[in-house]
């Protein structure tokens, strides 16, 4: 697992912020029927929840870009790209989920708050 550097309060707040709907990414869930069900993900917290089970799949490339550009965490984005690069599609979720969860926990430790902020579109 990646070793993350320390976060600033500003970086921690940005990582935890809920994004406007237009800047969502999607994780697809696969059930028995109905094909891929894309779930809109608006925050790092959403991503962790959605990738906990249920055959979640997503574009690691899009996730890394989103984390870097929208959540402002290039370090996490690079870690996702590196760790998921050689993994099979259905093996990526636990790894990416753990990385984002770890970084979120770090952010929460820095902030010591529970409620996510909301950023303007």
């Amino acid at each position, binding site marked *: 697992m990646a070793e993350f550097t320390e976060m600033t309060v500003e970086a921690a707040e940005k990582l935890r912020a809920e994004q*406007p*709907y*237009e800047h969502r*990414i*999607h994780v*697809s*869930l*696969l*059930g*028995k*029927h*109905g*094909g*891929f*069900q*894309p*779930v*809109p993900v*608006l925050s790092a917290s*959403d991503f*962790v*929840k*959605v990738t*906990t*089970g*249920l*055959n979640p*799949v*997503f*574009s*690691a*490339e*899009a996730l890394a870009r*989103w984390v870097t550009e929208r959540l402002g965490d290039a370090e996490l984005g690079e870690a996702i790209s590196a760790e998921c690069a050689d993994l*099979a*599609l*259905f093996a990526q979720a636990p790894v990416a989920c753990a990385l984002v969860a770890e970084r979120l926990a770090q952010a929460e430790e820095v902030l010591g708050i529970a409620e996510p902020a909301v950023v303007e579109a």
Partner: protein
Amino acid sequence: MATGGYVGKILRLDLTARTSSVIETEKYVQWGGGHGIGSAIFWELCTDKTVTGRDPKNVVTLMTSPLSGTMAPSASGRVEIQGIGTAGYPINWFTRSNFGGRFGGQLKYAGWDGIVLEGKADSPIWIDIINDKAVFRDAKDLWGKDTQETQQLIWELKENEEHGWTEIGKTRDSGRTTQKPAVITIGPAGENQSALGCLVHDAGNAAGQGGFGAVFGSKNLKAISVVGTGSIEIADPAGLFNARIWAKDEYAAAPGQQVEPNGPTFGVDPAPVFLYAKNPDGPMGPQACQGCINGCRARFETGIANESSCQETSMYKAFDVLAHGEGTDASYIATDLVQKMGVNSYELMQGMGYLYALSKMGVLGKGLEIDTDIDMSRIGEADFVIDLVDKISNREDIGEDLADGFVRAAEKWGRLEKDYAAGILDFPYWGYANHGYDPRAELEWGYSSIMGDRDMNEHGFNANFWSVIKHMMAGMEMPVSAEEYAKITTSKMVPYQDDMSMVDYSTENMYSESFAKLVVWQRHYTRFWKQSALYCDFRYPDFTNYNREDNVGITGDGEPKFWNVITGQDITFLDGIELGRKIWNLDNAIWILQGRHRDMVQFASYIYDIPLENSLVGPYYPMAGKVGDEWAYINTLGRSIDRDGFEEWKTHFYNLEGWDVASGWPTRETLEGLDLAFVADALAEAEKLGGV
């Protein structure tokens, strides 16, 4: 006359006059069964085909097939329902739906090949059918009840009545049965004529798409109950028994054989399946439609979500896991809820996604542009879905706006074009929800839907997607290469067999004549073999079957084999497909009379304007296709449908059908070639005959 699978009579019910009469099935045997007979009867009896779905002049048919109630594997339990629907946009097309269970068998045992509903009762009624007797009964004690309460009340009523059916000492032939009546009913959503209203039978069989719940509600028809003690004359009973053994031995997994993951095909998916995202606690057991070799559903100790197996089980999972990080009781409570209230789970699932988007965009909520008392912050919780479904079912709050479906609600809210443009209203064809198999990736699903009347919901080629995905999930190699898949599949697609490009899903091939052949074949195959003969969509067509060493499925051999031993006919697989062509042409003529023209055959704008990137879905949507000269399981994401390309494809399609390419209307020559001169005459009178 009862012969070869047909029991000889169709029950015609005039709900306005509360009278019944008999239609001799023999008159319609040329149409096969199911959908074919339903379309032919609708054509004759619905004299004004431009009426709306809720108009008393709308004619509804519920039809079985010669295979219904017999030992034909995975072809015995389904019923086809047709009529003008309430869910289509911009026109409520003549449409269809279909449900499994045991209703079709009981109807046949009662001596009826089908039911025709006309008119409108002046107060709520239900129909009580016991063998050859049909009684119009007052439904005031049933109105307002959910689908399970309704069935329970009917069962208790029948149990308590002095009909002697359960008395000791009586024989079956003198009128004794141990069977509960089979009931098809609407819930509150149908009563209040919501276009999301379904018909539900037993716990988990639903005719969901089309909006037939609202049609029943508009006719003041709560339920139809049927029980019979007769039997079905089979032309060759020994042949049927042997054919079933043949199918099991040749195509089903042998005891102990490792079953390859596959899509919906013959001999796979041993029962029971699991609910998504969470099963109710406690033991469960398998449950199947009548005569099926693959019980694909479960019954639970708790009784909650019993017999649900399809998309309704995963309808709420996205928001459940968004709220909780795992599947919780909310998922199966939601599943149970839509069955009880009789609500179309596909429309509801995609609709909830739309409502979520609107709420996050600050458009929908208390005191906002779209004002609602529904607490959108509770989405994912059981109380949210209970509140939303209650409001939809009772036309309260935004439920009134949603009564004609989410697309018409968006139009009413003045948001249709911009929400299509933004890609947040995921209803790509005729106002129907995306089935999860996006037209931009899985082309045949989109093309077949838009050339028809509704989300097609046919999994024949979709099985390839599932097969590849399931092997990926299991970390297994596909048993066949993409080239072998294409070869096996197209070898069965008579009369276009061996044009392997028919299943080439590459971007280079998506507007080709070959791909038009695939859709034409699919329209004709399904119209007869699946929707008229009523082979189950989850088992047929079976192109590739990985239980066998040669990987060749039952399709082509199996369908006519069972049909012929039951009916005593001697038709080929191709004969059935050609009859499907005839039925498809009749349906198309009805749509033309309703207002169909080539120009309106268009997807929602986002299908053309927004590429289906892997950040939106997937990220890998595999289908067979060619990369240069090589076959592979290619990723079909990253593209949109090109408007000009689609027009080119439509021209191929119309040419293959023998329809006028400018209007999409059939020519007299085509119709007369199908023995449909009377259809040509009607279209000519309406000035809608092609090539004139």
